[in-house]
């Protein structure tokens, strides 16, 4: 392995990692909102919307992100919907992540006993206040391990974005391999970049989960 080559490659990887992180953040935030919405729709069994959310969740969970992206990037333009690489990537990630986040929320919502809702209602809180002050805070704290797993999963999934011509880490590695045949260096930097992004996140989540486990609520 050649140190000079590594040094030469570093800036390209650095900016690609920035792109990966940025898109992952937007996608994860979007997934969180979609997931929250879907899980509340299903929790309150809102007719009509509930069936739509159910179909969406099954479609999203049982198909690969790569195919979802190809459909968005190559398929949709044929009916006049032209999305940029970045929009495709973010849309795809939200489409995929929304269902995973919805499942995470669902397990949290189911863990909140009904009597908690009733005692909040009997204090005269409105339905919205009950959701905001009682239901969600308790549900979210139960769901944190699932959220953490989803966040890491979604960041990993961003690695397929190169397939829709987004200049992310994989794209950078592939072009260096193709251009210069410095395969070892290109792959080394690739692994290093993903470790640099994912390892700290994984460690932080482990610490948070451990703390939560010791400070469990209990009534």
């Amino acid at each position, binding site marked *: 392995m050649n140190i000079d080559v590594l040094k030469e490659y570093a800036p390209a990887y650095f900016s690609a990692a920035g792109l990966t992180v940025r898109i992952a953040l937007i996608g994860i935030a979007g997934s969180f909102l979609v997931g929250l919405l879907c899980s509340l729709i299903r929790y309150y069994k809102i007719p009509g919307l509930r069936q739509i959310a159910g179909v969406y969740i*099954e*479609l999203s*969970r*049982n*198909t*690969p992100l*790569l*195919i*979802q992206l*190809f*459909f968005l990037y*190559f*398929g*949709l*333009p*044929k*009916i006049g919907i032209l999305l940029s690489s970045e929009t495709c990537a973010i849309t795809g990630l939200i489409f995929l992540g929304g269902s995973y986040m919805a499942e995470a929320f669902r397990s949290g919502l189911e863990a909140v006993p009904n009597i908690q809702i009733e005692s909040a209602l009997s204090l005269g809180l409105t339905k919205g206040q009950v959701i905001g002050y009682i239901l969600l805070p308790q549900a979210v704290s139960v769901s944190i391990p699932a959220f953490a797993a989803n966040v*890491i999963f979604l960041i*990993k*999934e*961003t*690695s*397929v974005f*190169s*397939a829709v011509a987004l200049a992310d880490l*994989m794209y950078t*590695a*592939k072009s260096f*391999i193709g251009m210069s045949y410095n*395969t*070892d260096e290109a*792959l080394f930097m*690739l*692994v290093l970049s*993903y*470790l640099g992004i*994912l*390892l700290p996140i*994984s460690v932080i989540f482990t610490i948070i989960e451990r703390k939560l486990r010791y400070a469990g609520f209990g009534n």
Partner: protein
Amino acid sequence: MQDLGIRVLFEGKNLIRLLEGLWVTIEISLLSVLISMILGIVLGMIMTVKNPLVKAVTRLYLEFVRIMPQLVLLFLVYFGMTRAFHVNLSGEVSAVIVFSIWGTAEMGDLVRSALISIPAHQYESGRALGLTEGQIYRYIVIPQTIRRLVPLAINLATRMIKTTSLIALIGVIEVVKVGQQIIEASRLSVPSAALWIYGVIFFLYFIICYPVAKLAARLEKAWNTV
């Protein structure tokens, strides 16, 4: 409505070719799943060993494989192995190797947690009944472990099937790649082919994964009483 792009499916042998491509996907998935299940069970049992060195090594393997995107692992094997060991691996072989390495790690962790989740008093009550250690495993521990494990293992299998789509990116001719070829070939005759072909592939994956995922969910529910 523009042209009926869906006819691209029925032109020539397009549908058959797509299904053949799908079969390649399934073959690679099934082979990797099979290898992962077998090696994963072994790994899971090794991981319950108390030896700190064994623990550290297996842990490191597990964490590395899990934290790396599968596509990165594919690149490492497909591009990296060739240079490191001077063997030229085909895309298919690389895929099976990578998915087995990854699947074994995931399966190993499932087996490990299923094994340690059997409470100590289960062993003790077995002993109290006068069963031998072998009988305790055969009649008490293994049946309970399997009930916990099977739904999770099926879920893992659907994840592996979905992940197989990545191998199109290292040039394996499977369903996505065949789809791309069809789109390319009918670029002039059916301009909207991409929409239809990717739509069909999307549903092909769904048709395979959905029933399997439902089965896992059902088993989990049915066996949750353990």
